[in-house]
Protein backbone atom coordinates (compact mmCIF):
# COMPACT_ATOMS: atom_id res chain seq x y z
CA UNK A 1 0.00 0.00 0.00
CA UNK A 2 3.04 2.23 -0.16
CA UNK A 3 1.48 4.14 -3.08
CA UNK A 4 -1.03 5.59 -0.56
CA UNK A 5 1.80 7.07 1.49
CA UNK A 6 3.07 8.82 -1.61
CA UNK A 7 -0.37 10.32 -2.30
CA UNK A 8 -0.15 12.00 1.12
CA UNK A 9 3.55 12.87 1.24
CA UNK A 10 3.86 14.52 -2.19
CA UNK A 11 0.75 16.65 -1.64
CA UNK A 12 2.20 18.21 1.50
CA UNK A 13 2.99 21.90 0.83
CA UNK A 14 6.27 21.67 2.78
CA UNK A 15 7.40 18.70 0.67
CA UNK A 16 6.48 20.47 -2.58
CA UNK A 17 8.41 23.54 -1.43
CA UNK A 18 11.49 21.46 -0.57
CA UNK A 19 11.26 19.76 -4.00
CA UNK A 20 10.75 23.09 -5.86
CA UNK A 21 7.63 21.33 -7.18
CA UNK A 22 4.20 22.62 -8.14
CA UNK A 23 5.61 26.11 -8.53
CA UNK A 24 2.83 27.01 -10.97
CA UNK A 25 0.16 25.62 -8.60
CA UNK A 26 -1.22 22.96 -10.92
CA UNK A 27 -5.04 22.93 -10.81
CA UNK A 28 -5.19 19.28 -9.74
CA UNK A 29 -3.65 17.31 -6.87
CA UNK A 30 -0.42 15.45 -7.39
CA UNK A 31 -1.22 11.79 -7.96
CA UNK A 32 0.81 8.68 -8.73
CA UNK A 33 -1.10 7.94 -11.93
CA UNK A 34 -2.87 10.35 -14.27
CA UNK A 35 -6.21 8.75 -15.19
CA UNK A 36 -6.80 11.51 -17.79
CA UNK A 37 -3.57 10.72 -19.64
CA UNK A 38 -4.10 6.99 -19.34
CA UNK A 39 -7.61 7.08 -20.79
CA UNK A 40 -6.69 9.48 -23.61
CA UNK A 41 -3.39 7.96 -24.69
CA UNK A 42 -3.08 9.04 -28.28
CA UNK A 43 -0.55 6.80 -30.01
CA UNK A 44 1.31 3.65 -29.08
CA UNK A 45 3.81 1.46 -30.90
CA UNK A 46 2.37 -1.97 -31.69
CA UNK A 47 5.83 -3.36 -30.94
CA UNK A 48 9.17 -2.00 -29.76
CA UNK A 49 11.07 -5.07 -31.00
CA UNK A 50 12.20 -3.15 -34.12
CA UNK A 51 13.70 -0.49 -31.83
CA UNK A 52 15.53 -3.20 -29.84
CA UNK A 53 17.10 -4.35 -33.12
CA UNK A 54 18.12 -0.78 -33.94
CA UNK A 55 19.65 -0.21 -30.49
CA UNK A 56 21.59 -3.46 -30.65
CA UNK A 57 22.82 -2.56 -34.13
CA UNK A 58 24.21 0.64 -32.58
CA UNK A 59 26.06 -1.38 -29.94
CA UNK A 60 23.77 -0.39 -27.08
CA UNK A 61 23.69 -2.68 -24.05
CA UNK A 62 20.14 -4.09 -23.86
CA UNK A 63 18.96 -5.95 -20.74
CA UNK A 64 15.43 -7.19 -20.18
CA UNK A 65 14.32 -8.55 -16.81
CA UNK A 66 11.11 -10.03 -15.50
CA UNK A 67 9.68 -10.54 -12.03
CA UNK A 68 8.13 -14.00 -12.37
CA UNK A 69 5.08 -13.59 -10.10
CA UNK A 70 3.66 -10.61 -11.99
CA UNK A 71 0.50 -11.42 -13.96
CA UNK A 72 0.10 -7.99 -15.60
CA UNK A 73 3.13 -8.15 -17.92
CA UNK A 74 4.21 -11.67 -17.06
CA UNK A 75 7.45 -13.48 -17.82
CA UNK A 76 5.74 -15.59 -20.52
CA UNK A 77 4.79 -12.41 -22.36
CA UNK A 78 8.39 -11.21 -22.31
CA UNK A 79 9.72 -14.59 -23.42
CA UNK A 80 7.29 -14.86 -26.34
CA UNK A 81 8.25 -11.32 -27.41
CA UNK A 82 12.02 -11.80 -27.11
CA UNK A 83 11.76 -15.10 -29.01
CA UNK A 84 10.70 -13.07 -32.07
CA UNK A 85 14.17 -11.49 -32.17
CA UNK A 86 15.63 -14.93 -32.90
CA UNK A 87 18.94 -14.05 -31.21
CA UNK A 88 21.87 -16.46 -31.03
CA UNK A 89 22.69 -17.70 -27.54
CA UNK A 90 26.06 -16.58 -26.17
CA UNK A 91 25.78 -18.00 -22.64
CA UNK A 92 23.16 -20.73 -22.22
CA UNK A 93 20.45 -20.63 -19.58
CA UNK A 94 21.66 -20.76 -15.98
CA UNK A 95 20.45 -19.91 -12.48
CA UNK A 96 22.02 -16.71 -11.16
CA UNK A 97 22.76 -16.23 -7.47
CA UNK A 98 22.57 -13.51 -4.85
CA UNK A 99 23.60 -14.21 -1.24
CA UNK A 100 23.73 -17.97 -1.93
CA UNK A 101 20.14 -18.03 -3.17
CA UNK A 102 18.89 -18.42 -6.73
CA UNK A 103 18.02 -14.83 -7.64
CA UNK A 104 16.45 -15.99 -10.89
CA UNK A 105 17.45 -17.43 -14.23
CA UNK A 106 19.22 -15.81 -17.14
CA UNK A 107 20.38 -16.32 -20.69
CA UNK A 108 22.85 -14.10 -22.52
CA UNK A 109 22.13 -13.64 -26.21
CA UNK A 110 24.17 -11.83 -28.84
CA UNK A 111 23.26 -8.22 -28.08
CA UNK A 112 20.74 -8.79 -25.30
CA UNK A 113 20.65 -10.23 -21.77
CA UNK A 114 17.41 -11.67 -20.40
CA UNK A 115 16.99 -12.34 -16.67
CA UNK A 116 14.14 -13.35 -14.41
CA UNK A 117 13.93 -12.35 -10.77
CA UNK A 118 12.52 -15.26 -8.75
CA UNK A 119 9.51 -14.35 -6.63
CA UNK A 120 9.40 -10.71 -7.70
CA UNK A 121 6.25 -8.96 -8.88
CA UNK A 122 5.71 -6.19 -11.40
CA UNK A 123 7.86 -3.74 -9.47
CA UNK A 124 10.91 -5.94 -9.07
CA UNK A 125 12.97 -3.63 -6.79
CA UNK A 126 9.97 -3.28 -4.46
CA UNK A 127 9.55 -7.02 -3.94
CA UNK A 128 13.18 -8.27 -4.31
CA UNK A 129 15.40 -5.25 -3.54
CA UNK A 130 18.62 -7.17 -2.93
CA UNK A 131 18.30 -9.17 -6.15
CA UNK A 132 17.33 -6.05 -8.08
CA UNK A 133 20.43 -4.22 -6.86
CA UNK A 134 22.61 -7.16 -7.97
CA UNK A 135 20.88 -7.09 -11.36
CA UNK A 136 21.64 -3.37 -11.70
CA UNK A 137 25.28 -3.78 -10.62
CA UNK A 138 25.80 -6.49 -13.26
CA UNK A 139 24.04 -4.40 -15.91
CA UNK A 140 26.16 -1.31 -15.22
CA UNK A 141 29.34 -3.44 -15.14
CA UNK A 142 28.31 -5.08 -18.41
CA UNK A 143 28.96 -8.49 -16.87
CA UNK A 144 26.77 -11.62 -16.82
CA UNK A 145 24.88 -12.24 -13.55
CA UNK A 146 26.79 -14.23 -10.90
CA UNK A 147 26.81 -18.05 -11.27
CA UNK A 148 27.27 -18.53 -7.54
Amino acid at each position, binding site marked *: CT*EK*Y*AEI*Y*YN*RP*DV*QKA*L*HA*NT*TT*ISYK*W*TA*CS*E*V*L*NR*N*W*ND*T*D*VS*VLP*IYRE*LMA*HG*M*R*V*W*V*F*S*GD*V*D*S*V*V*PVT*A*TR*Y*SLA*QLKLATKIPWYPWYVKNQVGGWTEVYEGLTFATVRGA*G*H*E*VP*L*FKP*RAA*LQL*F*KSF*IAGKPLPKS
Partner: protein
Amino acid sequence: EEEEEADRIVELPGQPTVSFRQFSGYVTVNRVAGRALFYWLTEATQNPFRKPLLIWLNGGPGCSSVAYGASEEIGPFRINKTASGLYLNKFSWNTVANLLFLEAPAGVGFSYSNRSSDLLDTGDRRTAKDSLEFVIRWLERFPRYKNRELYISGESYAGHYVPQLAQQIIMYNAKAKHPINLKGIMVGNAVTDNYYDNLGTVTYWWSHAMISDQTYRQLMSTCDFHRQKESDECESLYSYAMDQEFGNIDQYNIYAPPCN
Protein backbone atom coordinates in the same frame (compact mmCIF):
# COMPACT_ATOMS: atom_id res chain seq x y z
CA GLU B 1 25.64 26.95 -11.74
CA GLU B 2 22.99 29.29 -10.39
CA GLU B 3 20.26 27.25 -12.06
CA GLU B 4 21.74 24.08 -10.61
CA GLU B 5 22.05 25.55 -7.15
CA ALA B 6 18.48 26.85 -7.34
CA ASP B 7 17.40 23.22 -7.79
CA ARG B 8 19.48 22.01 -4.84
CA ILE B 9 17.36 20.22 -2.22
CA VAL B 10 18.51 21.27 1.24
CA GLU B 11 16.49 18.60 3.02
CA LEU B 12 13.12 16.90 2.55
CA PRO B 13 10.60 16.97 5.42
CA GLY B 14 11.25 14.03 7.73
CA GLN B 15 14.34 12.98 5.82
CA PRO B 16 17.22 11.20 7.57
CA THR B 17 20.63 12.85 7.24
CA VAL B 18 22.43 11.71 4.10
CA SER B 19 25.81 12.33 2.51
CA PHE B 20 24.70 12.50 -1.11
CA ARG B 21 23.33 15.61 -2.82
CA GLN B 22 19.88 15.97 -4.31
CA PHE B 23 18.40 18.33 -6.88
CA SER B 24 14.89 18.69 -8.27
CA GLY B 25 12.87 21.07 -10.36
CA TYR B 26 11.51 21.73 -13.82
CA VAL B 27 12.93 21.69 -17.32
CA THR B 28 10.84 23.38 -20.00
CA VAL B 29 10.51 21.08 -23.00
CA ASN B 30 8.08 23.11 -25.10
CA ARG B 31 7.95 26.86 -24.66
CA VAL B 32 4.96 27.47 -26.93
CA ALA B 33 2.69 25.04 -25.12
CA GLY B 34 4.31 25.73 -21.77
CA ARG B 35 5.17 22.10 -21.13
CA ALA B 36 7.66 21.40 -18.34
CA LEU B 37 8.87 18.08 -16.95
CA PHE B 38 9.72 17.56 -13.29
CA TYR B 39 12.88 15.67 -12.30
CA TRP B 40 14.50 14.54 -9.06
CA LEU B 41 18.20 13.74 -9.01
CA THR B 42 19.68 11.76 -6.12
CA GLU B 43 23.43 11.60 -6.61
CA ALA B 44 25.54 8.55 -5.84
CA THR B 45 26.55 7.96 -2.24
CA GLN B 46 30.25 7.74 -3.13
CA ASN B 47 32.25 9.35 -5.96
CA PRO B 48 29.21 10.87 -7.67
CA PHE B 49 31.54 12.59 -10.13
CA ARG B 50 32.76 9.25 -11.41
CA LYS B 51 29.56 7.20 -11.28
CA PRO B 52 27.28 6.81 -14.33
CA LEU B 53 23.94 8.57 -14.69
CA LEU B 54 20.74 6.49 -14.76
CA ILE B 55 17.44 7.93 -16.01
CA TRP B 56 14.52 5.95 -14.54
CA LEU B 57 11.02 6.00 -16.05
CA ASN B 58 7.88 4.27 -14.77
CA GLY B 59 4.93 3.17 -16.86
CA GLY B 60 1.17 3.45 -17.07
CA PRO B 61 0.92 5.15 -19.47
CA GLY B 62 0.39 8.14 -17.19
CA CYS B 63 2.06 6.66 -14.11
CA SER B 64 5.71 7.61 -14.51
CA SER B 65 5.65 9.55 -11.26
CA VAL B 66 8.05 9.62 -8.31
CA ALA B 67 5.57 7.46 -6.38
CA TYR B 68 7.02 4.30 -7.88
CA GLY B 69 10.66 4.14 -8.94
CA ALA B 70 11.85 6.85 -6.57
CA SER B 71 9.69 6.09 -3.53
CA GLU B 72 9.15 2.32 -3.47
CA GLU B 73 11.72 0.74 -5.76
CA ILE B 74 15.24 1.99 -6.50
CA GLY B 75 15.40 5.39 -4.78
CA PRO B 76 17.32 6.08 -1.55
CA PHE B 77 14.22 6.87 0.51
CA ARG B 78 11.00 5.07 1.45
CA ILE B 79 7.96 6.97 2.74
CA ASN B 80 6.81 5.83 6.19
CA LYS B 81 3.30 4.62 6.93
CA THR B 82 2.02 7.94 8.22
CA ALA B 83 3.70 9.89 5.38
CA SER B 84 5.27 11.99 8.12
CA GLY B 85 8.79 11.24 6.94
CA LEU B 86 11.26 9.10 5.08
CA TYR B 87 13.58 6.23 5.95
CA LEU B 88 16.53 4.83 4.05
CA ASN B 89 16.32 2.06 1.44
CA LYS B 90 19.45 -0.03 2.07
CA PHE B 91 19.26 -1.51 -1.44
CA SER B 92 19.04 1.83 -3.19
CA TRP B 93 20.57 1.97 -6.68
CA ASN B 94 22.32 5.24 -5.83
CA THR B 95 25.15 3.20 -4.36
CA VAL B 96 25.97 2.33 -7.97
CA ALA B 97 24.86 5.34 -10.01
CA ASN B 98 23.46 8.87 -9.94
CA LEU B 99 19.67 8.43 -10.23
CA LEU B 100 17.60 10.84 -12.30
CA PHE B 101 13.85 10.28 -11.88
CA LEU B 102 11.74 11.83 -14.63
CA GLU B 103 8.00 12.44 -14.40
CA ALA B 104 6.90 12.13 -18.00
CA PRO B 105 4.96 13.08 -20.01
CA ALA B 106 3.48 16.45 -19.00
CA GLY B 107 0.39 15.76 -16.94
CA VAL B 108 2.10 13.10 -14.85
CA GLY B 109 2.91 13.95 -11.23
CA PHE B 110 4.32 17.45 -10.97
CA SER B 111 5.02 17.74 -14.71
CA TYR B 112 2.55 20.06 -16.37
CA SER B 113 1.42 21.73 -19.55
CA ASN B 114 -0.18 25.16 -19.77
CA ARG B 115 -2.09 23.87 -22.78
CA SER B 116 -4.69 21.68 -21.08
CA SER B 117 -5.55 19.89 -24.34
CA ASP B 118 -2.08 18.30 -24.16
CA LEU B 119 -3.42 15.90 -21.54
CA LEU B 120 -5.96 14.61 -24.05
CA ASP B 121 -3.70 13.86 -27.01
CA THR B 122 -0.31 12.82 -25.67
CA GLY B 123 1.16 9.49 -26.71
CA ASP B 124 4.41 7.65 -27.33
CA ARG B 125 5.68 10.13 -29.91
CA ARG B 126 5.34 13.35 -27.92
CA THR B 127 6.62 11.60 -24.79
CA ALA B 128 9.80 10.48 -26.57
CA LYS B 129 10.43 13.90 -28.13
CA ASP B 130 9.77 15.81 -24.90
CA SER B 131 11.98 13.41 -22.96
CA LEU B 132 14.82 13.94 -25.45
CA GLU B 133 14.37 17.70 -25.12
CA PHE B 134 14.48 17.25 -21.36
CA VAL B 135 17.77 15.32 -21.49
CA ILE B 136 19.42 17.91 -23.77
CA ARG B 137 18.36 20.87 -21.61
CA TRP B 138 19.01 19.08 -18.32
CA LEU B 139 22.60 18.41 -19.42
CA GLU B 140 22.95 22.14 -20.14
CA ARG B 141 21.95 22.82 -16.54
CA PHE B 142 24.26 20.07 -15.19
CA PRO B 143 27.24 20.24 -17.58
CA ARG B 144 29.33 17.95 -15.36
CA TYR B 145 27.13 15.10 -16.61
CA LYS B 146 27.60 15.94 -20.30
CA ASN B 147 30.15 13.24 -21.06
CA ARG B 148 29.08 10.85 -18.29
CA GLU B 149 28.01 7.31 -19.19
CA LEU B 150 24.23 7.40 -19.46
CA TYR B 151 21.85 4.47 -18.99
CA ILE B 152 18.06 4.49 -19.22
CA SER B 153 15.90 2.05 -17.28
CA GLY B 154 12.29 1.50 -16.32
CA GLU B 155 9.45 -0.97 -16.12
CA SER B 156 5.98 -1.77 -17.45
CA TYR B 157 4.80 0.78 -20.01
CA ALA B 158 8.27 2.31 -19.77
CA GLY B 159 9.04 -0.71 -21.95
CA HIS B 160 7.94 1.81 -24.60
CA TYR B 161 9.38 5.03 -23.13
CA VAL B 162 12.89 3.66 -22.54
CA PRO B 163 13.72 2.24 -26.00
CA GLN B 164 11.89 5.11 -27.71
CA LEU B 165 13.95 7.70 -25.79
CA ALA B 166 17.13 5.74 -26.58
CA GLN B 167 16.17 5.76 -30.25
CA GLN B 168 15.61 9.54 -30.11
CA ILE B 169 19.05 9.99 -28.55
CA ILE B 170 20.70 7.88 -31.26
CA MET B 171 19.03 10.03 -33.92
CA TYR B 172 20.09 13.20 -32.08
CA ASN B 173 23.67 11.95 -31.75
CA ALA B 174 23.90 11.42 -35.51
CA LYS B 175 23.71 15.21 -36.00
CA ALA B 176 24.95 16.58 -32.66
CA LYS B 177 28.26 18.34 -32.08
CA HIS B 178 28.29 16.92 -28.55
CA PRO B 179 26.68 13.48 -28.65
CA ILE B 180 25.01 12.15 -25.51
CA ASN B 181 27.05 9.26 -24.09
CA LEU B 182 24.24 6.70 -24.02
CA LYS B 183 25.55 3.21 -23.21
CA GLY B 184 22.47 1.06 -22.79
CA ILE B 185 18.96 0.35 -21.58
CA MET B 186 17.42 -2.05 -19.10
CA VAL B 187 13.67 -2.70 -18.89
CA GLY B 188 11.62 -4.84 -16.52
CA ASN B 189 8.20 -6.51 -16.93
CA ALA B 190 8.14 -4.38 -20.01
CA VAL B 191 5.30 -3.80 -22.45
CA THR B 192 7.05 -4.95 -25.61
CA ASP B 193 4.89 -6.41 -28.36
CA ASN B 194 1.11 -6.20 -28.45
CA TYR B 195 0.46 -9.64 -29.85
CA TYR B 196 3.06 -11.62 -27.90
CA ASP B 197 2.41 -9.73 -24.66
CA ASN B 198 -1.28 -10.62 -24.79
CA LEU B 199 -0.60 -14.21 -25.82
CA GLY B 200 1.97 -14.57 -23.04
CA THR B 201 -0.31 -13.01 -20.44
CA VAL B 202 -3.22 -15.35 -21.11
CA THR B 203 -0.81 -18.30 -21.18
CA TYR B 204 0.64 -17.25 -17.81
CA TRP B 205 -2.84 -16.97 -16.31
CA TRP B 206 -3.66 -20.50 -17.44
CA SER B 207 -0.30 -22.06 -16.58
CA HIS B 208 -0.49 -20.52 -13.08
CA ALA B 209 -3.99 -21.92 -12.59
CA MET B 210 -5.60 -18.47 -12.30
CA ILE B 211 -8.24 -19.14 -14.99
CA SER B 212 -10.27 -22.16 -16.08
CA ASP B 213 -9.59 -24.26 -19.17
CA GLN B 214 -12.84 -22.99 -20.62
CA THR B 215 -11.94 -19.31 -20.16
CA TYR B 216 -8.48 -19.97 -21.57
CA ARG B 217 -9.95 -21.66 -24.65
CA GLN B 218 -12.49 -18.84 -25.13
CA LEU B 219 -9.83 -16.12 -24.78
CA MET B 220 -7.61 -17.89 -27.29
CA SER B 221 -10.41 -18.39 -29.79
CA THR B 222 -12.31 -15.09 -29.36
CA CYS B 223 -9.52 -12.52 -28.99
CA ASP B 224 -7.42 -11.22 -31.85
CA PHE B 225 -4.22 -10.32 -30.00
CA HIS B 226 -2.95 -8.35 -32.99
CA ARG B 227 -5.59 -5.68 -32.45
CA GLN B 228 -4.85 -2.57 -30.37
CA LYS B 229 -8.47 -2.35 -29.25
CA GLU B 230 -10.03 -5.73 -28.49
CA SER B 231 -13.59 -6.61 -29.50
CA ASP B 232 -16.38 -6.26 -26.91
CA GLU B 233 -16.65 -10.07 -26.71
CA CYS B 234 -12.96 -10.33 -25.93
CA GLU B 235 -13.08 -7.45 -23.42
CA SER B 236 -15.92 -9.11 -21.55
CA LEU B 237 -13.96 -12.38 -21.41
CA TYR B 238 -11.01 -10.51 -19.85
CA SER B 239 -13.38 -8.91 -17.36
CA TYR B 240 -14.93 -12.27 -16.52
CA ALA B 241 -11.51 -13.81 -15.93
CA MET B 242 -10.39 -10.97 -13.63
CA ASP B 243 -13.68 -10.44 -11.80
CA GLN B 244 -14.95 -14.01 -11.49
CA GLU B 245 -11.94 -16.31 -11.67
CA PHE B 246 -8.93 -14.44 -10.21
CA GLY B 247 -10.47 -13.62 -6.85
CA ASN B 248 -9.14 -10.86 -4.59
CA ILE B 249 -5.45 -10.99 -5.55
CA ASP B 250 -2.79 -8.40 -6.32
CA GLN B 251 -2.28 -8.96 -10.07
CA TYR B 252 1.11 -7.27 -9.77
CA ASN B 253 2.27 -9.99 -7.41
CA ILE B 254 -0.03 -13.00 -7.45
CA TYR B 255 1.35 -14.48 -4.20
CA ALA B 256 1.35 -11.27 -2.11
CA PRO B 257 -1.56 -10.13 0.07
CA PRO B 258 -3.66 -7.54 -1.83
CA CYS B 259 -3.69 -3.94 -0.64
CA ASN B 260 -7.30 -3.50 0.42
